[in-house]
């Protein structure tokens, strides 16, 4: 009877998982979805406690208490910007748990149960990869770990070794406890080698993949115990996670293969022109930009010659309107020599019917920057170049500029790292507050409008 109740609880939990994920894929219901998934999890855990003959309950509860405390603590105290790292960390813990279960179970498994054994090996290997990979991903995001070139072939050799060892363990006909630890070790190293060479900017995709892997280990663990909730939950997370990985890569205009198998994703991202000398300009994508913009109180647009070249005047006005719909105040900071003729920006913005009241002169807007959440520099360069203030040797020294880095965030939209009219580099692009949003201004702005409207 009890075991039947457990079965039914698991069934309910699975349904709650599905409904939860489904709701989570829409902004309006995402929070509800998370709660429903949580309820599903609680049902599953509660049911598990009903399992007849469960020992060490106190120990279990203690472990859970510690885990709960730690989990809540980290989740509450982490900075908004460090969340992806934390997700990666938690994911690694899940992988580790699966690997540990595998290790313990191996002791109890009769050597001739090859099917179960294979499943167990999968848990071990994948769990370990997920664990070490996640921790590296976290370190990379934190900026603690630098990109290292690791030969991909070497990495594959590691994976091959792990697989061969597992095959041997399964077929040797005798318990091989030490080899099993060896498998874990090699898998851990493979996890490192796998994630190390991937660029920091691509980490979200990698984390999503590792997350799918953790899902797979949950499923394999489920097979091990013939436990439906782990099996189904694992499959769900695995398949959803895999799709999510593809979607995320697509959103970054990259293929997953390109991300995983091009060493130094960071470097190849850099090939897009984002680094000059040792300085690396930090990129941002459309979605993150649109979030930054949508949740700002005040956004100041600083248009430059590039806006005119891209003929993006209508697009920028559309963005202005989309943001104002969301209650964001949008102003334009007009530098007197932005563009290539006196009044160039006025001509452009008048064409797209931007209200004159929104066009603020340089001196006035400079005063407003400290209370501005996001400055969006669109195709401007010289007019926001701090060299005009700082560097007496610069040809533009002495020109008053728009001091955009007095705002909280700066997004710079331009096609690459090319210099402007004066032909000089711009330190603003390497400023800690600056994020580059590369692309033709019109395309980027059109994309932003869509994103903002979808928020």
């Amino acid at each position, binding site marked *: 009877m009890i075991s039947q109740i457990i079965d039914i609880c698991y069934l309910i939990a699975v349904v709650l998982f599905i409904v939860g994920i489904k709701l989570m894929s829409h902004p309006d219901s995402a929070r509800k979805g998370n709660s429903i998934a949580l309820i599903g999890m609680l049902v599953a855990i509660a049911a598990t406690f009903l399992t007849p003959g469960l020992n060490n309950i106190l120990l279990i509860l203690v472990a859970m208490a510690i885990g709960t405390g730690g989990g809540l603590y980290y989740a509450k105290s982490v900075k908004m910007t460090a969340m992806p790292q934390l997700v990666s960390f938690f994911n690694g813990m899940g992988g580790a748990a699966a690997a540990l279960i595998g290790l313990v179970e191996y002791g109890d498994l009769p050597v001739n149960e090859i099917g179960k054994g294979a499943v167990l090996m999968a848990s071990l290997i994948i769990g370990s990869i997920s664990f070490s990979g996640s921790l590296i991903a976290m370190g990379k995001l934190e900026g603690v770990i630098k990109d290292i070139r690791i030969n991909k072939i070497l990495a594959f050799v590691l994976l091959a070794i792990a697989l061969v060892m597992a095959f041997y363990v399964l077929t040797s006909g005798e318990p091989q406890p030490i080899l099993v630890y060896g498998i874990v070790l090699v898998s851990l190293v493979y996890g490192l080698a796998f994630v190390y060479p991937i660029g920091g900017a691509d980490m979200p995709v990698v984390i999503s993949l590792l997350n799918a892997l953790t899902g797979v280990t949950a499923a394999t663990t489920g097979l091990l115990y013939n436990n439906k909730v782990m099996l189904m939950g694992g499959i769900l997370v695995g398949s959803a996670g895999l799709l999510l990985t593809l979607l995320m890569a697509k959103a970054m205009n990259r293929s997953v293969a390109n991300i995983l198998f091009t060493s130094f994703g960071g470097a190849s991202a850099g090939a897009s022109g984002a680094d000059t000398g040792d300085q690396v300009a930090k990129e941002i994508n459309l979605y993150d930009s649109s979030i930054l913009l949508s949740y700002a109180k005040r956004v100041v647009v600083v248009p430059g010659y590039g806006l005119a070249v891209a003929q993006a005047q209508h697009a920028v006005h559309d963005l202005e309107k989309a943001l104002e719909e969301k209650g964001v105040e949008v102003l334009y900071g007009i530098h*007197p*020599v932005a563009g290539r003729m006196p*009044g160039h*920006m*006025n001509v452009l913005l*008048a064409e797209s019917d931007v209200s004159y009241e929104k066009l603020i*002169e340089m001196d006035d807007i400079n005063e407003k920057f400290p209370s501005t959440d996001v400055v969006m520099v669109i195709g401007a360069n010289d007019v926001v170049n701090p060299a005009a203030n700082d560097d007496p040797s610069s040809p533009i020294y002495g020109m008053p500029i728009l001091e955009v880095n007095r705002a909280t965030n700066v997004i710079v939209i331009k096609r690459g790292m090319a210099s402007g009219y004066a032909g000089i580099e711009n330190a603003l692009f390497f400023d800690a507050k600056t994020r580059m949003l590369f692309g033709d201004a019109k395309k980027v702005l059109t994309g932003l409008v869509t994103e903002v409207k979808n928020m």
Partner: protein
Amino acid sequence: MILGVLKEPTTEKRVSLHPEAVKALISAGNQVLIETGAGLKAFLADDLYSAVGAKIVSRIEVINQAEMIFQINPLPTNERAAAGAGKVIIGVYQPLVERELMAEIASQGLTLLSMDAIPRITRAQSMDVLSSMSTVSGYKAVLLAAASLPRFFPMLMTAAGTIAPAKVLVIGAGVAGLQAIATAKRLGGVVEAFDTRASVKEQVESLGGKFVEVPGAVEDKAAGGYAVEQSEEYKKKQSEMLEKSIIKSDVVITTALIPGRKAPILITNEMLVKMKPGAVVVDLASVNGGNCEGTVDNETVTIEGVTIIGSSALPATMPEDATKMYSKNVHNLLKLLLNGDKLNLNFEDAIIQGTCITHGGEIVYAPLK
């Protein structure tokens, strides 16, 4: 039918028919006589007309031979006499203002079709010279204002300082007024407009202008879209409201007309004095006395630093396109008037009824009867 096109008096640069229309009329079976040099000032040389089959002849010949005579400006008495009874003359005669002239023309036995009397019904829109010429005037008024203004229209933020956009006020948002609003907006001005007809508020806004509201205007649906005379009380309120707008404006364009009456004075000399020095007023109502106290028709005067351009003849300053449009209007009327090459004065037709002023020795125009 023999159609004759006369050369206009010296101040006029338009001409009644464009070669395009002449071509169509000839292929419909008519004969067309053109006075030598008739289109020259509209950049339409004689050979353009002869190329489409018209005969280039002297003025006298046109007047004597043509059965239907075209001249935009009224024909002088002697030439009307020379033409002789029974002929049809087509031009712009302002029948409601020139009542005596109408009586005279009737007595001469001429059939007069005055293009400005075409009723403003939907079907007649393609013949409506008031609309087409107002379009020219509204556009040109803004250009004149911009050319006379000592300032920029658009806002400019430059290394040599920020130039604020010019403030433009358009009074009277009829056809000319709306075109003026559109043109001033195009040039980058900040445009306000005022009219006694509240229904044009939406129209002004549809062009991006701001409507100055003065509550309490009388509107007469029966007036067919035209404005009617307003109460004294309203006029006072209007005057107060308008003054505020006027004195902060760089450019004021006035087009307020009430058909058949003297134009209302909307800018008094007192207001003028308070305007910014350098400001420009373009008064399109000048032919009816103007909306501005100081206006002199077809002259530019300066009062206390404010330039007042009284210009009722703006279409003549854009002769090429104005001719095209006028000619198209006339041609569309002729399509109704001519049955192939025969005259067909069908007084059942509301358009003919409304446009024909004199016929068979009598005044047939209802408002004058």
